[in-house]
């Protein structure tokens, strides 16, 4: 009988960890979102659902904006990451490890610092816009910093490896002979890509979307550093409700709402794509 316990024992450390740092804060947060009061007088659990209604009404714009930014970022990430992953997987040969390392190299620098350095790149008279304006290619009034474009650029940049790596892994697993078989069966390089390579890379894309859409939608650094008040994302709102206004119930309610929306979004996405098919390919 003892050996039957072994699998559970293996789960124990991870399970305890999750219980302590995931379940406990979640319960605390849920409870917090249903409390009333203020920092000075303390909070009381009253089951006040109205906080949710108010929070959603007040910050609907930021919530929707975050999801839109997250979605655009994810799409751009797929477009940007696929060729990179493809190149490394099929043409990297003996330099694969080096190329992957180069891809990850900037990420040894702190997230915030990297984002701030993008400020310098995108600033009005900076190294990107300055020369273009001097050359008369852009109007003097043209600017990127503070616009959604800057925020999304920052998001794409910051999450790139999280899209490249899973796609790379999926492509790397494709037997080159299978692609050759497609070419042998009258598929041009393009058709072979569309009919064979891309479908086989889908599990990687799927994983990449999961790994980027959720954190990109709830990000609060890129908009804060590269955006303006017109690009405020829900993560920023939650942060300021917690740390600036000390309005814990609203912050918790927003966090929960965001989580729920993202979960629904991810499940809908999985359903639409047919996870089973995707996972079947992944499990081959």
């Amino acid at each position, binding site marked *: 009988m003892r050996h039957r316990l072994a699998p559970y024992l293996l789960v124990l450390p991870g399970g305890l960890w999750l219980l302590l740092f995931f379940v406990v804060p979640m319960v605390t947060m849920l409870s917090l979102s249903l409390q009333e009061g203020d920092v000075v007088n303390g909070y009381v659990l009253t089951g006040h659902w109205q906080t949710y209604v108010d929070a959603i009404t007040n910050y609907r714009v930021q919530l929707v904006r975050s999801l839109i930014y997250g979605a655009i970022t994810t799409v751009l990430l797929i477009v940007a990451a696929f060729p990179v992953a493809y190149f490394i997987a099929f043409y990297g040969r003996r330099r694969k490890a080096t190329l992957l390392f180069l891809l990850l190299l900037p990420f040894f620098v702190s997230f915030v610092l990297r984002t701030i350095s993008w400020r310098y790149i995108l600033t009005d008279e900076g190294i990107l816009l300055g020369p273009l304006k001097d050359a008369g290619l852009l109007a003097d009034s043209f600017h990127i910093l503070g616009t959604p474009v800057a925020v999304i650029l920052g998001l794409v940049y910051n999450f790139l490896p999280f899209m490249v790596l899973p796609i790379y892994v999926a492509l790397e697993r494709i037997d080159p002979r299978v692609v050759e078989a497609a070419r*042998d*069966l009258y598929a041009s390089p393009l058709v072979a890509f569309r*009919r064979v390579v891309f479908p086989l890379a889908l599990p990687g894309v799927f994983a990449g979307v999961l790994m980027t859409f959720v954190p990109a939608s709830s990000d609060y650094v890129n908009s804060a550093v590269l955006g303006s008040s017109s690009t405020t994302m829900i993560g920023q709102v939650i942060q300021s409700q917690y740390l600036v206004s000390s309005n814990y119930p609203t912050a918790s309610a927003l966090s929960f709402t965001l989580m729920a929306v993202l979960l629904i979004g991810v499940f809908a996405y999985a359903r639409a794509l047919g996870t089973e098919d995707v996972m079947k390919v992944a499990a081959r």
Partner: protein
Amino acid sequence: MSDTAAIELVGVHKDFLSHGDTVQAVKPTDLAVGQGEFFSLLGPSGCGKTTTMRMIAGFEEPSGGTVFLDGNDVTGVAPHKRDVNMVFQSYALFPHLTAYQNVAFGLERKKVAKDEIRRRVGEMLEIVSLTGMEKRSPREMSGGQQQRVALARALVNGPRALLLDEPLGALDLKLRQQMQIELKRIQREVGITFVYVTHDQGEALTMSDRIAVMEGGRIDQLGTPREIYEKPATRFVAGFIGTSNLLDGSVDSISGGVALLVFAPEEKVLVPVPPSVTDGTKLEISVRPEKIDLSRDAPAAADCSVLTGTVREVVYHGTSTNYTVRTSAGADLVVFDQNAYSAEDLAGPGDRVYLTWSPQHSYPIGVRP
């Protein structure tokens, strides 16, 4: 067969660069495969069979030389524009598609009508006995079933030539024999040229019109199964195809195109030789084990090769019994005795025996005519 070869290689070779060294996987090779021919490439692992196929299919550009398909120079033409199909050594099925979709892939690319595709794929799956498995994904099939899907996927397109890289390697003996017959039938009926890679010499001998035996990136011998078996051009071919007995000696005399090699009083080997052979020429002679008669009594006939020796080993094989005999000439000879007549072994280990065979069953290896 029409005049233009279905497949022709002229001076084709392939050099790979690996870790700074150049490896010549295929040495400059000339080869012509006739229309509708069943042509086998036979050779040990790493001798360049797959590389040769890949150059014909277009996956590998030759480092030099020209590839012709039906008389057209296709060197440098993309694989999807060559009317040949390949059955890959590793199957290379599309893992995300079902068996049906795998087989239909080529026809869909060629924009064949839906009904037509359904009909042809259905027929093909029946031929490879996979009816009812249409919806299975490759993951859900055994190695042999996958191999048959790979076969069907290539055959269904009815290409001018089919390149098969060890297509039956994963099948058990019975299914293998069944598929051999099936392949042969399809090949005859449809008249497709087959280039067939195998390292099973029995398979190559039974199925092929002609065989090229490769070794170290070079074709050692090219000929009909009978030529390859009866008249091996090199020591390698003799050893690789079937069991061969090799005898070394020098010619003592020649009369009427037959050389006499004397090993001891009353021990001699007779071998037909071309005029280039003269007294004193060193010869390497191949004798197939089933041609040799083994007996404990001295032979009566005088115009035969005769050697004496001691039986070292007797192995019963069902249809035949195999004897290994250490001859006084020094070599170990293997003798197959059909079990059609002998109810018991002709001799046992340690017995002195006489080995006899007729002159035409000796073949001098590597002698230029």
